[in-house]
């Protein structure tokens, strides 16, 4: 039952994140949406890890380790994306894009 609930939650998060990625116009909001999507994917992974539980281990450790790695890599990608967007704003080139 726990897995069904969080499986549905993970799938919903992917849908919500994807929707934000499509309809948002501001880069920062898109970065947020991308992270929501990523969180959903990790959660689906966690549900699969939980289904792989065996005697003595509450959850399959291999997907867990991959999710931990994924969270850290997602953070670095987010930090780089934010620096790019901030620099774009500083140089003022983002505003010209639409009219050029």
């Amino acid at each position, binding site marked *: 039952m*726990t*897995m069904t*609930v*969080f*499986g*549905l*939650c*993970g*799938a*919903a*998060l992917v*849908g*919500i*994140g*994807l*929707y934000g990625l*499509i*309809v*948002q*116009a*501001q*880069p*920062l*909001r898109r970065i*947020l*949406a991308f*992270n*929501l999507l990523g*969180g959903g994917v990790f959660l689906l992974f*966690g*549900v*699969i*890890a*939980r289904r*792989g539980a*065996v005697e*003595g*281990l509450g*959850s*399959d*450790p*291999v997907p*867990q*380790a*991959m*999710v*931990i*790695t994924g*969270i*850290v*890599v997602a*953070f*670095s990608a987010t*930090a*780089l994306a*934010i*620096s790019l967007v*901030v620099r774009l704003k500083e140089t003022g080139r*983002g505003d010209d*894009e639409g009219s050029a």
Partner: protein
Amino acid sequence: MTAGIAVDIGLAALVAAMALWTILVRDAYAAVIGFIGYGLLLALVWVRLDAVDVALTEAAIGGGVTGVLLLRAVGALHRGAAPLEDGPPPGPATRRIAALACAAVAAGLAFVVLGVSGPAPTLAPLAAEHLPATGLKNPVTGVLLAFRALDTLLEKVVLLLALIGIWSLSPDGAWGGRPTLGRPGRASDTLRFLAQLLPPVGIVVGIHVLWVGANAPGGAFQGGAVLAAMWILAMMAGLSPVPAIGRPWLRAALVIGPLAFLAVGVAGIFIADGFLAYPPAFAKPLILAIEAAITLSIAVTLAMMVAGPPQRPGAP
């Protein structure tokens, strides 16, 4: 058991509601706050899924460090002039089509994950069987630092590459200089008080999380993120200067983790079975030594990522 299911349903509904809020709310600042709440709630979900290691990582990195990063970004991007936008927002028809398509994707995923029956594929028995050879008791740390050590090593390199990418965005003339974190000399009394109160506790917690990671939930990522948060706090309050990115000690701290990992990995070719293999007698001490070096590098890398590209020329 019924109470547990009620908690699960409530938690899942809250997480989904927070995600919707983050997408739909008009104000970017409110969206960021929603996202931080989402990260912390997600950490609780991981606890419910028996993945406490992931929960600690999500709380420290997903909720904590990312939160600081996003709040700074929202301050920089939505101050003064109109925020940066790529063209006009899509019209109602596009929104409706996108919503339908995304709902279909979510439904498909739910079906794939929940609709399958039969035993799930799992590597848990293999991990449990070989865990004693590493001398560790936490299977997740075993996977991260022994069974799938190459993933972890490459991830350290990804962190460094991302930081190099961030630094390369520094304005001409500021290269090698100092990033700006907070407003120097204008930190509030509350921030300064917290920055004096929390780090002594936080540093002990960070090192404890690293140390117990061998046998209980915890480890290098989680400990490093806590240490990074403490350093960020001290820098934002102006109690600790933000280092110039050209400083040799800073560069050394950034690379010591990956280098130590790589050195032990290469040594494995000669003293054990191959690259990144550990000699059984020394597996645990070697893993702990690597973890200690990695923790330092993770803490420094995460903090410098939050600080962003240098803005001021550093003192020579």
